[in-house]
């Protein structure tokens, strides 16, 4: 039997985010989505911020929701930058961060959105 306990800072953090435009008809593709994130980082933390590696693990064009992966040490910065974003291409928009977790597995389900199922 062997036991490994890793405490403290997780190597990666995962964020489930949703991009929302004031104009509900707007949609962006994954490349633009990445650019939006990079611009947000750029305006908040300059060139050093823009260089932070961020992975878009999953992106859904319909809902403009994505799962992002970022190094644990940059998580607070990325989250802050997403919060501070207000415009893309002169269009007002906002990132809604739905779930943040150091475990990708935890994003698979959330009991706060649990729907009780009734048998017909």
């Amino acid at each position, binding site marked *: 039997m062997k036991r490994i306990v890793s405490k403290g800072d997780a190597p990666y953090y995962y964020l489930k985010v949703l991009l929302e435009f004031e104009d509900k008809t707007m949609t962006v593709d994954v490349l633009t989505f990445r650019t939006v994130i990079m611009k947000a*980082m*750029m*305006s*908040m*933390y*300059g*060139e*050093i*911020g823009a260089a932070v590696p961020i992975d878009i693990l999953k992106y859904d064009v319909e809902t403009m929701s994505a799962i992002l992966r970022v190094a644990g040490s940059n998580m607070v910065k990325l989250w*802050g930058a997403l919060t501070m974003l207000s415009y893309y291409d002169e269009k007002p928009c906002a990132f809604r961060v739905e779930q943040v977790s150091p475990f990708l597995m935890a994003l698979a389900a959330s009991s706060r959105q649990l729907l009780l199922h009734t048998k017909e």
Partner: protein
Amino acid sequence: MVRFKHRYVLAELVFGNDLLVYNVTQRVVYAAVRDIIEQLHGGYGIGLFTPGMSVKYINEYTRMVMVRCRRENLKILASAIPFIKHLPDGKGGQFPCFLRTLHVGGSIKACQKWLVQHNRQVLPTLLLRCTSEEEKSRMRKSIFDSTIVKEEPWTEGKNDT
């Protein structure tokens, strides 16, 4: 006593061409440092950095500048200084110039002591650079009163208490 702790960075202005003497003021250096920090660290970096930052001293002849910042922001300043490539020449253009960090001190006094030492060492080379007697005497004078800040230190608004 409750106070802010600062760090003072002494740096040498290195021009691409040694013979030209540019009119570099504290205001110019301040703006250059601020701009480079904004470029590198963005709005967040500049927001953290501006309080407590000022250019305390500049000597055109020995080309020394002293920049003050809050102790916790030293890393931001130290990492940004090497990225300065140009300074505005006051006529709308730019001239190539970079800053060579020489010393970091915890008080103006410590920096001044160091500066006197340093000036003593480099005085011969500096004097060689001068072309006329008049310039030499100006140079000497400026070194002798290197302790005295010629103008009021220029920052955005006033200094911290």
